[in-house]
């Protein structure tokens, strides 16, 4: 047992910190700290800064432009990003599609698409959920029918995050209705400019346009845009879920958020004393603080035990459940801190909006109830 970082790891931390001090635009950091929404160009600017340093797709293999960092280094990197209120990496290209292409894509696909993820030529979005296929994702119905050198795609995807910015979408589509429903799914890359695609905004409960519905009507997709083998898409989709779990518990972001919570609670008075000194509120904060400290260790235990950062599905599920519960609790406490000021639509520092927006954490990426199914299957072995 050794819970300390080596001198080399501490030196790496200093290197990351120095990089952020010099390169993180203060405008972006302030937006993140105060839970403001980033624009498309904000994201692109930050991706370009990271890419220039070779840190945009840090977890990719070195030959494709990754870093070869250890699990500890990846953890330290996330930790420093969060501490500096740096934006996260928009996951769809670097963290989701990239690893799938690297593992299952053709040489031509890797050569063409991977550099475009890194240099920002493409903004990817994810076409997974459908109106009738949420937690039960394998029930998806969007069809792709082979017609010569093309697939003809028809159907509807929904909850497509930041799809309004995207020029490309990776989709799970049904290429067969025979056998188990998981066995007829393929993984398809689709150009959003293709005729027959319509993107409609969905406004969320915080009043924001973050997600979209995407309609496909006789959309022609070249067959070379299929990843891997036809009808094996479910395997690739599942791989994507186990890959790169360093961030799933969100501990670094929660640590930064708890610090912000303490700051705003300090400024609010109850019975003439700062909320941080109010026995009830201090206890509520201490509960989540302790839970988070435990989670920091649980997270590292799981990641290091898995060796290569690909945690067993059920352990990743535990991190997801508790990690999102902690993150949500911090936003709940922040909302409580505001008192009556939580009510105006533009509540200070976007706190109420973020509380509302973060209800999504326990729903997306496999709802926390689906995660419990995954864990109980593994625990009960039945």
């Amino acid at each position, binding site marked *: 047992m050794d819970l300390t970082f080596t001198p080399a790891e501490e030196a790496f931390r200093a290197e990351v910190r120095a990089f952020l001090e010099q390169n993180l635009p203060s405008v972006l950091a302030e937006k993140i700290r105060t839970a403001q929404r980033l624009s498309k160009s904000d994201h692109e600017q930050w991706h370009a800064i990271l890419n220039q340093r070779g840190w945009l797709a840090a977890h990719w293999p070195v030959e494709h432009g990754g870093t070869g960092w250890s699990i500890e280094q990846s953890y330290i990197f996330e930790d420093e990003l969060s501490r500096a209120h740096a934006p996260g990496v928009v996951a769809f290209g670097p963290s989701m599609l990239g690893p799938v292409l690297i593992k299952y894509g053709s040489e031509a696909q890797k050569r063409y698409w991977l550099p475009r993820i890194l240099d920002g030529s493409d903004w990817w979005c994810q076409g997974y959920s459908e109106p009738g296929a949420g937690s039960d994702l394998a029930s998806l119905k969007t069809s792709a029918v082979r017609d010569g050198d093309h697939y003809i795609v028809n159907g509807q995807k929904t909850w497509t995050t930041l799809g309004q910015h995207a020029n490309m979408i990776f989709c799970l589509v049904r290429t067969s209705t025979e056998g188990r429903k998981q066995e007829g799914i393929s993984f398809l890359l689709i150009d959003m400019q293709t005729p027959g695609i319509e993107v409609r905004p969905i406004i969320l409960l915080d009043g924001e346009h973050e997600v979209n519905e995407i309609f496909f009507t006789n959309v022609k997709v070249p067959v070379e845009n299929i990843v891997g083998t036809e009808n094996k898409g479910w395997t690739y989709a599942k791989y994507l879920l186990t890959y790169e779990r360093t961030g799933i518990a969100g501990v670094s972001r929660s640590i930064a958020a708890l610090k912000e919570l303490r700051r705003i609670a300090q400024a609010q008075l109850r019975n003439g004393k700062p909320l941080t000194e109010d026995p009830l509120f201090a206890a509520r904060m201490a*509960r989540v603080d302790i839970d988070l400290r435990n989670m920091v260790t649980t997270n590292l235990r799981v990641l290091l035990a898995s060796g290569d950062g690909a945690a067993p599905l059920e352990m990743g599920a535990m991190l997801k459940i508790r990690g999102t519960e902690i993150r949500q609790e911090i936003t709940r406490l922040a909302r409580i801190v505001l008192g009556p000021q939580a009510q105006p639509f533009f509540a200070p520092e976007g706190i109420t909006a973020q509380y509302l927006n973060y209800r999504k954490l326990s729903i997306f990426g496999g709802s926390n109830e689906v995660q419990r199914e995954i864990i109980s299957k593994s625990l009960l072995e039945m």
Partner: protein
Amino acid sequence: MNFTHSEDRQMLADTFGRHLDQQYTIDVRHRISGSPEGWSRERWLGMADLGIIGALFDERSGGYGGSGFDLAVVFEQLGRSLVVEPFLGSLMAGQALAKAGCRSDLLAQLITGETTLAFASEEPQSRYDFASITTRAQHDHGTWTLSGRKSVIPQLEAASHVVVSASLGKESAGLFLVELGKPGAAVSGYKMVDGGRGGDLTLDRASATLLTDNALPLLEEITAAGIVALSWEAVGVMDVLKKSTLDYLRTRKQFGIPIGKFQALQHRIVNVAIEIEQARSAAINAAAALAGPRAARERAVSAAKYTVGRAGTIAAEESIQMHGGIGMSWELPLSHYAKRALMIGHQLGDEDHHLLRFVSLAATG
């Protein structure tokens, strides 16, 4: 960074685990626990021969361990087998002798298993606050005597000596060694809810040896060690609760299918499993912090005791619930594990005590 035990510690854990599996089955445990003595000198000596007591002390004190993770591997196994022998009191009193640099002869007897010690900081009014001390020490003609009451001391009757905190007046306190069986030190023993025996100590001008006249820093350190030990014992206990409940969910049939097929129960056991993993992490954090700077150590220790208090209650109550009627029975080992998980919450500070303490530590550090 590394979350596996050293080879030596893992070997100790494995050896001790096998020893307990053979020598300390649940039937043996019940017989010992229900006996008039409430512990077994024979088993105690057997465990001492294995080197288990020596693992709790560093080399300077005649042992070969004494670090947080040494306590961890020993107490996790004690929890797994519901051992009632006087480990906690012996650890805490032994650490008091070691840290005060007194009575190395007695410490040597403890490590070989010849004797057992008890530790008495709790008083009828103190409610987990080791600084709340009404027992008074008096110095007369070169000898110390103590008067007052100490309560709910684990395995007090088994001990040859007890380490006692006592007020020296004016905000200062001392730690003393009291030999039991001498005039002025009356022991009243009773059965404990979770097995074994405890006792109250009434001191009336009992003669005592001064270990230190600056007790509070030492009490804090010793209590920290005790909490690390209890946290790992709780982890051992909770792992058994989880395993037994999973076995039951797989095998017990109702409505024609194993009850583990019901989603309501599946989600309950998952919640328990997550609590236990968080508790294990808290216990790791506390063990790692034990030898570190005071502020970080005390925060980690209070965080751990809060966490195992909370998780222990959840694991105990949920395991009983998921077992249904049979979970209520004395006969099933499960109920005894559940009681131990709950009662650990009542030793050295409960969930609320340590949550408040964590708040005040965070405010000062």
